[in-house]
């Protein structure tokens, strides 16, 4: 009986593995993707990068331009994540099982958050391009909308996990909704909420490059510009500055997390 049970489980796992392998092969042959070709092109890519994709003295002349755009991008990323966090908190409080006001609003809030979350930031950038044109405002809105969707979901789960019992206790004292939220829910979850916002800022800086290419603003725009002008040396400087600023932001947010938690 027992061995039969284990056997069944093993067969089940084996079956799933087999399906995955078949899917991989099927997809590869349909798209004419060849693993061998893929690996063989890596050396070529490296050789090309070493030959072209590095900053030279000339490209450093463009550094002030690049840094100005980088600053714009960082500020947009931070602003979009922080403003989105405020809206996300409101929606998360309405949508959370623990703090919901009523079922209808909770479902509505979850639905809105899900729609916003499941549409990628690049799609938002393209859609918003129609209404706002090529400007940093478009980039800001795209990042804001994507951040809002993600943070609402993350906040909701944080509140769900952290609070049910204590919220019940305060409800039993006769406390009203706002007292419960500000005296219990937020104190209990604040460090996790801030952690999510920091994560969102990091994500936004990464995404800002792509969004910038699409909306013609920020650091993505200058990268696109140099790249299309085949000024690969300057483009590589842009990439370098992005990588450095992401590392820096990561250090800062790690520090903030350590101090907070």
């Amino acid at each position, binding site marked *: 009986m027992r061995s039969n049970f284990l056997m069944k489980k093993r067969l089940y796992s084996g079956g799933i593995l087999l399906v995955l392998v078949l899917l991989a092969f099927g997809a590869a042959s349909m798209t004419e993707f060849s693993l061998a070709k893929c690996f063989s092109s890596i050396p070529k890519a490296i050789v090309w990068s070493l030959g072209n994709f590095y900053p030279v003295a000339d490209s450093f002349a463009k550094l002030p331009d690049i840094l100005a755009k980088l600053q714009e991008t960082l500020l947009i990323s931070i602003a979009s994540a922080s403003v989105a966090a405020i809206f996300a908190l409101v929606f998360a409080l309405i949508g959370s099982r623990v703090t919901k006001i009523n079922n209808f609003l909770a479902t509505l809030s979850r639905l809105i958050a899900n729609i916003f979350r499941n549409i990628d930031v690049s799609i938002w950038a393209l859609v918003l391009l129609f209404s706002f044109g090529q400007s940093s405002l478009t980039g800001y809105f795209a990042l804001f909308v994507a951040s809002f969707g993600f943070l609402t979901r993350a906040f909701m789960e944080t509140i769900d996990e952290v609070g049910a019992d204590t919220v019940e206790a305060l409800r039993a004292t*006769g406390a009203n909704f706002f007292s419960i939220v500000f005296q219990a829910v937020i*104190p209990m979850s604040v460090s996790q909420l801030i952690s999510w916002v920091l994560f969102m800022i990091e994500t936004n800086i990464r995404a800002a490059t792509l969004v910038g290419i699409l909306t013609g603003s920020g650091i993505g725009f200058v990268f696109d510009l140099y790249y299309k002008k085949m000024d690969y040396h300057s483009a590589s400087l842009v990439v370098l500055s992005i990588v450095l600023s992401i590392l820096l932001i990561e250090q800062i947010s790690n520090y903030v997390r350590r101090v907070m938690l």
Partner: protein
Amino acid sequence: MTTLLQFKNVSKQYGNSTVALSDVNFSVNEGELVSIIGPSGAGKSTLLRCINRLIDATSGEIIFDGADMLKINKKHDLRALRTKIGMIFQNYNLVERLSVFENVLHGRLGYKSALVGALGLYNENEKKQAIKIIQSLGLNEQVYKRCDQLSGGQKQRVGIARALVQEPRVLLADEPIASLDPNSSKVIMDHLKNICTTLGITVLVNLHQLDVALNYSDRIIGISGGRVVYDGLPANLTDEDIRRIYGSDPEALNLIIQKPKEVAQKI
């Protein structure tokens, strides 16, 4: 003796199938300590939460202090009544990151408007009263400590303090000692008994442990499968009653108590 709380034909059904309470009738007098005992899943937690409407009963009447709790529709009125009903929990349900002082003051939130409560503004009187209650529960040293630094027994005393600053008429305790060691359990039960006798606050306590119920209560209500199967003095509880409450599960019986009658006689 005046009746403070009365259940009349109260039933509670979760969804379409789970009947948690069926046709429950009993009454509690002012200043009594009443234990509600029964196996897990009997409906004890549901019963307590129906009183302060954390759970809405499906039918019946729950008369508290002359008013039918189930007929209250306005949120404001419900909150006003809840301030008169303190509650403590098995898992203490504190805001662990805040201090003992802040957690105890939370008991005053029911008296406050949205803005004042959200900002956590308390007057001098309330603060003094909170400190006095904290001291009376032997937590002088811990007033400004964060609750996550306390032991289980201390946390439960914070829970009791939070309920007492409400100035309640009745205290509902849902398995207050289920997560505590025997020594802390005794401290907590002694405090509850003391609150009942010296402050005259009625105490309704859900208990898993029959011996504790026998030792501390003025009256015992036994429930099984959502029905009241015993309502009387601890001393009158017979072996047969115990079997009716806990079913014929001998393991549960042995775990709970070997010789119930002897313990009862020790009081």
